[in-house]
């Protein structure tokens, strides 16, 4: 696995520190993500993994450090700017739009691709109609890809957990992101669902060439999926490298792998 070749660096975080009041959540974190790879961020609970993702897509603004995405360096950016530059994500506790159908959720993910103004929208004619149909086709391709045709018109709030996770992945994919952030995509799943989800992640990476950064608890899955792994613990960076290197790292073993998990 580690023999895969990758392109240029797509994202680089440099010396990121983030704190809320006196609590230091992230302490001087630096790593990079190369185009086309599957990158994992692991660590025990409270290690600052989710905060790291929140920093990358602009939801939290770090006190120190910089983020370089596609050659542009900045300290912080607004979430919608991150989204419009091609960063999409899923959430640890599913954050779907519960009152809307699967199709509408995925169509909302395509929001950034849609441009017609409110007057055409009001008439639902001409450019607005054309745009709606084009995006519907794109959305349907994702629905096919994730094999969720049957729940297309169902309100997502009533779907089982595993399917919701899949719809959420669909919503993120709908934006055709260059960098996809997955926040614990397999949390709370049974082993069959985990396998399905792993398959989808690999397929996304393979077929669309999407760069993926994911946070995960399940060590087995992470080591199999990832090209490279960053390990965080209490906001500090313990290790960074190929899965086998990380696995062999004594600090990591002490902090995380050494402790019987689950």
């Amino acid at each position, binding site marked *: 696995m580690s023999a895969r070749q990758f392109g240029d660096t797509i994202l680089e975080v440099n010396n990121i520190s983030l704190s809320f009041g006196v609590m230091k959540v992230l302490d001087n974190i630096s790593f990079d993500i190369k185009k086309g790879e599957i990158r994992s961020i692991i660590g025990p609970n409270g290690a600052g993994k989710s905060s790291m993702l929140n920093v990358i897509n602009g939801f939290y603004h770090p006190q120190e450090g910089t983020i370089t995405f596609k050659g542009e360096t900045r300290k912080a950016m607004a979430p*919608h700017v991150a989204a419009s530059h091609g960063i999409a*994500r899923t959430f640890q506790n599913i954050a779907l739009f*519960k009152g809307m159908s699967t199709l509408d959720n995925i169509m*909302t993910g395509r*929001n950034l691709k849609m441009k017609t103004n409110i007057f055409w929208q*009001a*008439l*639902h004619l001409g450019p*607005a109609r054309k745009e709606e*149909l084009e995006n519907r086709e794109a959305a349907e391709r994702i629905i096919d890809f994730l094999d969720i045709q049957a729940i297309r018109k169902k309100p997502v709030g009533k779907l089982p957990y595993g399917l919701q996770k899949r719809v959420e992945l669909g919503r993120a994919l709908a934006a055709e992101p260059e960098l996809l952030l997955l926040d614990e995509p397999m949390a709370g799943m049974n082993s069959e669902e985990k396998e399905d989800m792993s398959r989808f992640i690999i397929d996304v990476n393979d077929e669309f060439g999407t760069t993926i950064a994911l946070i995960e608890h399940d060590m087995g899955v992470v080591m199999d999926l990832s090209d490279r792994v960053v390990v965080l613990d209490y906001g500090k960076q313990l290790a960074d490298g190929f899965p086998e290197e990380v696995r062999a790292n004594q600090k990591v073993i002490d902090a995380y792998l050494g402790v019987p998990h689950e």
Partner: protein
Amino acid sequence: MIYRETGQFKANYADDQALFPIAQDRYVIYAVLFATFAVVPMILNQYWLNAIILPFLIYSLAALGLNVLTGYCGQVSLGTGGFMAVGAFSIYKLMVAVPELGFITLVILSGIITAAVGALFGLPSLRIKGFYLAVATLASQFFLIWLFNKVGWFFNYNATGMITSPPMTIFGVLVTGPEATVTAKYFLVASIVAVFALVAKNLARGRFGRNWMAIRDMDIAAELIGVRPLIAKLSAFAVSSFYIGMAGALYFAVWLGSAEPTEAFDINQSFLVLFMIIIGGLGSVLGSFLGAGFLVLMPILLKNILVDGFGTDSALAAHIEIMTVGALIIIFLIVEPHGLARLWRIAKEKLRLWPFPY
């Protein structure tokens, strides 16, 4: 047995995206439109048209507007009365100043002015949410009513502070002023409401509608996937106020004929329209109509039953009416938070499968 979609196949996404994908629904809509423009004006007398149908249509428009903001975008507003007043005073000023533009243009202009005011008062929604916002919208209610009461320019400095709508015509037919016939008013209002109900439906099923609902269901996630809260919220405020402004303009210029801000547009109007969308169904175009119809009809029915039927004292009847409205709100929120529109949908689902249970 009649309500079946079996055999209706969609060969492309355009058909599936249509406004009413099921053929029978389309027939119902055609029937309703036919009834609205051909049957109703023939069979209903002046009293019915003026006392029930006109206010029903105008409140439906206001309810549509509030539903965009509260039902679709999830921002509770208690300023509807104030925004209706903006529409009313806008059209008054316009009717006096530029009557040559034509009445329909003036109605739409009043809507646009109200949209601008609404977007302005929607600005706090970018910083505050939920109850805080609901309370903040009360500020607009009180401030606007005060403004129209105190600043003479708005009512052209007349002594009473009342505004009265001057007569205007469309295609040579009088639609405002004391001389205008109820039938003419009815056709005008029904046409405007029909067109803008379609517009609301279009907006709701397109990009704007989805972004509003995304903000409503999970605002943070919406922002993180690229929905700009600024644009989504302010567009909801603007579109909502546009509708409410038009409703206020029609309410004053066509229905009431003359108005005084503290009475016609006070906070009870805000509650009334809010109740309409709760009872009718939050986030439903159909629900806006059902709710408006229900709350326009119910007091009249109740009054007929109590005062004429049982000889109840009319003050007591008014108190019973208030209580009933309140109780109905609570009952609806407990039993069916999605309102009458949801009941209608359930009935349709049942009908699709009938006579089989599933």
